[in-house]
């Protein structure tokens, strides 16, 4: 991995570059709101939402012998995390060069990140000694709007782009900023039922919706209206968009003593404690248990942050997957679909 320094607006910044097959395109990985380079390089570090909500619950746990009966709840928590493959790893495995970096103003407006992307592209054009357009811009969430704004306003460096691939990017905006108060009330209600574990699971969502970045992406915001005006596909660029329709992030797991833990045994001490896991009724799974305030937070329509119907471009090829907003950072089937666009066949591992 090469770390390349550059300067933007007087600040020293870095690019993480992995060198691949020179005959393959270079993929520039662009994260979304509140993100950083880890979103595309190591999503287990950030956003750290890789909950394993599909595996069977853990088997019963033997605690041991005690002098008192075991009664009631012992623990409440979320699903365990699972290992995941980042976009960078998936592309490197198939010989692509990749570039990732921390964008400026990840929670602010897009004006500076767009200028920064132009700076980055100028550096990369020189670094990779391009003679024909071979950059793929692979963008998650707000990264897709960053790409569109960049392509519209920076035609000189944009002419080196061959593919635009956006993952769960709210091209027509997100209604979450409009329902922030109702969403907060719904999460508070859930927390009153299930406890602080709800904040562990969804606290980040309210922080995100409260940012300038999210307000800039509200449906029919001045930014989006201005972006659409006069926007046309860049000649020679192929556009692909992906949307998600699952709002399931994690289960809330309750560990409680088995009934047998309260029955005395002919033993010294007499009570053998064993705990068993169940899903918390009503509150689990998250975020299915939230009311369907908008399509963004409705199972089957959105991925918790974006509505699939708002993630499309009129000049792009769109695909829908039943994954949530974070899973777009590591879902193997989605990665296989993108690799196929880039000319690589990878059979998805259905066991992951």
């Amino acid at each position, binding site marked *: 991995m090469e770390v390349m320094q550059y300067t933007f607006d007087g600040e020293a910044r870095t690019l993480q570059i992995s060198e691949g097959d020179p005959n393959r395109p270079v993929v520039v990985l662009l994260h979304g709101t509140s993100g950083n380079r880890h979103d595309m390089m190591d999503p287990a570090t950030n956003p750290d939402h890789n909950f394993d909500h599909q595996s069977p619950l853990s088997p019963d746990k033997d605690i041991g012998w005690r002098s*008192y009966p075991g009664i009631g709840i012992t623990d409440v928590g979320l699903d365990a995390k699972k290992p995941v493959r980042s976009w960078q790893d998936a592309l490197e495995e198939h010989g692509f060069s990749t570039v990732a970096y921390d964008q400026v103003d990840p929670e602010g407006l897009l004006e500076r990140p767009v200028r920064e992307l132009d700076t980055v592209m100028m550096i990369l054009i020189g670094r990779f000694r391009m003679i024909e357009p071979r950059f793929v811009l692979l963008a998650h969430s707000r990264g897709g709007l960053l790409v569109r704004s960049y392509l519209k306003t920076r035609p000189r460096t944009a002419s080196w782009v061959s593919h635009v691939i956006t993952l769960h990017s709210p091209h027509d905006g997100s209604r979450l900023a409009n329902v922030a108060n109702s969403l907060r009330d719904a999460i508070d209600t859930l927390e009153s039922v299930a406890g602080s574990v709800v904040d562990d699971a969804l606290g980040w969502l309210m922080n995100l919706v409260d940012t300038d970045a999210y307000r800039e992406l509200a449906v029919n915001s001045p930014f989006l209206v201005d972006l659409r005006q006069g926007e046309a596909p860049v000649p020679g660029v192929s556009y692909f968009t992906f949307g998600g329709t699952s709002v399931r992030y994690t289960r809330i797991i309750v560990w409680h003593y088995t009934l047998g833990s309260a*029955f005395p045994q*002919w033993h010294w001490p007499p009570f053998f404690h064993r705990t068993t896991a169940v899903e918390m009724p009503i509150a689990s799974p998250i975020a299915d248990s939230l009311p369907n305030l908008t399509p963004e937070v409705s199972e089957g329509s959105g991925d918790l942050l974006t509505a699939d119907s708002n993630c499309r471009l009129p000049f792009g090829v769109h695909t829908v997957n039943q994954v949530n907003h974070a899973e777009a950072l590591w879902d193997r089937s989605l990665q296989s679909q993108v690799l196929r666009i880039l000319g690589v066949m990878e059979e998805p591992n259905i066991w992951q």
Partner: protein
Amino acid sequence: MSNEIPSPDPRKMLGDFRQSYTNFPRLWKTEGRIPEEVKLRSAKDSPITEADLPQELWTLLKEARAASPKRSFIPVKFMNLINGRPVQVVEDEEGLPAEEHLLVLGRTLTMNTCDEARISTDILVVRVD
């Protein structure tokens, strides 16, 4: 799938009871001493009667007898533990009846003040024929 609290499996619970069973007369014979705080008595020499048992266990035993009047219910072992330690044990060196002939009754009482936390547990093993 997993929102239900699992129902108990009574046969498995009796199996667990048998598996964790410790015969205290044999244990203390091996160790060469009976702990000081324990009163040990043989059920054969001095059978377990209503007077030995807490009222709730005697009531449960009467209910079991009334539900199966053709069967015999013979208490064969009784133990009282305080804070998990046996203080009264009525038991011989024989093991437990087989599962089909086994009835186990239990009672736990707790008391908690600023100065004391006490758990009293009673267990009665009955042979059912």
